[in-house]
């Protein structure tokens, strides 16, 4: 394995930023790191780079310990930080020349070609470059090496859509050369487009390890069916998960769809919709978004008194002592949507027979 971590743990005082992280990344793949802010993605990358010393566990790149054999490990990797800062007094061309002198596998001609590809003005001093231009320059530095592992921490942040697409193409080219890319991003579509394997992190822990080829073969089928029990045939029951909410049915199917569509013909279904199960669904399972309180716009009745309706998922009881003027509190006595009402609409998973 090209990159390996064993029970990696990093604590800052009493706060655990990374906990028991064990990973193995093979050559020639694009490995995605996904998670919200503070999930531990950057901490993991910084441990791999030897910037942070782990509280316990170990990390190796190309067989070299990231903390005891840092220079050898760094010969095998190249890194683009999330917020790349370069030397303000240098011009773009000088920055590329400097880094090409710093490592033997970084060629100035490659960096210049990349700069041309990104349409970057190298005659400008870094101090006078915009954030996007700086990011492009850092990408030229990072991607012009022939390192076995390329670590990109949010590489497309601050980039325009053209360059963003170019970066994705370059990542694909690196993969085709048999090199490995570790790609950390918040942009699900990018991860979905480019990664072969994705790890989802939450609060310093790896919560999902996904093979994108498998995920891409999964689909979700929505349809309406008459009330009554739906029985999934045994021969493909292991590939199907069924959720039902009244007449609304949702099937999560892995593998070929042909057999399931044939079966559905006999169910008298209507309003059929098929969609791939994207990374979004998996991500949402790991990180349920906090629902914002919903408040409808006030309606003015004939007497001229405004009436507000709304619901808050966290609010379970209506306060009988609430003031009569509905505008005086954000969620007044005449609020709509208690937890009981919300539960009525929740999907119930049926047994598959």
């Amino acid at each position, binding site marked *: 394995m090209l990159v390996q971590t064993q029970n990696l743990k990093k604590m800052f005082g009493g706060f655990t930023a990374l906990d028991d992280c064990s990973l193995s990344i093979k050559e020639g793949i694009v490995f995605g790191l996904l998670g919200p802010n503070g999930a531990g993605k*950057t901490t993991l990358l910084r441990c791999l780079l030897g910037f942070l010393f782990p509280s316990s566990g170990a990390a190796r790149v190309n067989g070299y310990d990231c903390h005891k054999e840092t220079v050898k490990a760094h010969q095998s990797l190249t890194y683009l*930080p999330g917020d790349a800062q*370069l*030397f303000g007094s240098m011009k773009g061309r000088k920055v590329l020349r400097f880094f090409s002198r710093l490592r033997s596998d970084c060629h100035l001609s490659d960096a210049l070609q990349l700069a041309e590809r990104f349409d970057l003005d190298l005659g400008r001093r870094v101090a006078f470059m915009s954030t996007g231009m700086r990011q492009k320059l850092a990408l030229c530095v990072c991607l012009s090496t022939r390192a076995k592992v390329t670590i990109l921490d949010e590489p497309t942040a601050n980039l325009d859509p053209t360059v963003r697409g170019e970066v994705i193409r370059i990542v694909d080219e690196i993969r085709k050369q048999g090199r490995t890319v570790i790609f950390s991003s918040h942009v699900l579509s990018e991860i979905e487009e480019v990664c072969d394997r994705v790890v989802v992190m939450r609060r310093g822990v790896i919560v999902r390890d996904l093979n994108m080829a498998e995920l891409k073969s999964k689909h979700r089928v929505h349809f309406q069916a008459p009330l009554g029990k739906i029985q999934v045939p045994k021969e493909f029951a292991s590939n199907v998960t069924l959720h039902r909410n009244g007449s609304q049915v949702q099937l999560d199917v892995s593998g070929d769809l042909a057999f399931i569509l044939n079966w559905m013909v006999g169910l008298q279904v209507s309003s059929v919709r098929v969609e791939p199960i994207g990374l979004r669904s998996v991500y949402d399972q790991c990180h349920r978004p906090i629902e914002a309180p919903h408040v409808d716009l006030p309606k003015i009745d004939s007497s001229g008194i405004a009436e507000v309706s709304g619901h808050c998922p966290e609010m379970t009881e209506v306060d009988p002592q609430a003031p009569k003027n509905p505008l005086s509190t954000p969620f007044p006595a005449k609020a709509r949507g208690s937890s009981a009402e919300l539960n009525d609409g929740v999907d119930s998973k049926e047994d598959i027979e």
Partner: protein
Amino acid sequence: MNGALIRKNLDESKWLMLGCFMAVIVICAVRIWIVSQIETSNFRQIIEWLPGDLEKLSAVPFSWIITYPGRIALTYQEPIIILCLAVWCIARGSDCVSGELGRGTMEMLIAQPISRMQFLHSHTFVTVAGVVLITLGTFVGVWLGIELTVVHEKIYPTVQLPFFQEELPLPFMTAEERHTPMREKANLMLFVPAACNYLAFGIMLSGLTAFMSSWDRYRWRTIGIITAFHICQVLTKLLGMASTDFSWVLYLSIYSAYEPEVAVRIADVQPESVWQFWVNMDGMVVLGTSGYCSILLAFGIMGFLAAGKVFKNRDLPAPT
């Protein structure tokens, strides 16, 4: 060390280095020109009027300070000459870790196949090279001053006192103007020990600043701490010199080892002992030029070693 990093550090600091170098040359030369403009005899009168207690604030006797070598030696105690060196040492010393961290440029550098020690040594090399260049600048300034200036003296006719074997000047008679080149009044080589003391002082300040920078993440805080240290040490030295009751605090001030005028006096008065660690002078055994320089260099080297140790074992936080 790494050639590319040295080039980069030189490139970043060249204007500051050249600025300090030129400034010390000009200031030293101008100061010696001013020395040449005021006759020593005028100072003798002033010193006679000064209260005797003031002499304890000086590391050398006033009677020697008013000589040409003494007055030129005080160039190395000029606040602006010390400031030029301090600006260089603090600016470069604070930049090495907390400066790069604060700017966010550390990540791209340390992610390359270079060790942290290579990074630090390359920085230290340029800082020390700057200290050497600025010291050289002071020496060049002193050399220019000594070579280019001429002392204008008024020599009054004298009369020999019959019984006292002394000559008494006759100020009411017409004086003879005499122009003597400064090089005949002060030998340039007398100031080599002072320059060495200045160099050691720069290395001490750079080492301590690098140490502060190695554990910090904010450059402004490093500069603040080292400036406060500088002020406290100067005040401690002044307190120790001003009061005999507090003379022991001189041992607490690293600045007690920065005495360029003492080094010049030893070279002037006891040239045979100029490079000795201990010197027997005025009936007392005191530290010599080597003693002063060794103490300062020891602190500087310890600072750089501690900086290396701290930097090698610390976490590098993400830029804020």
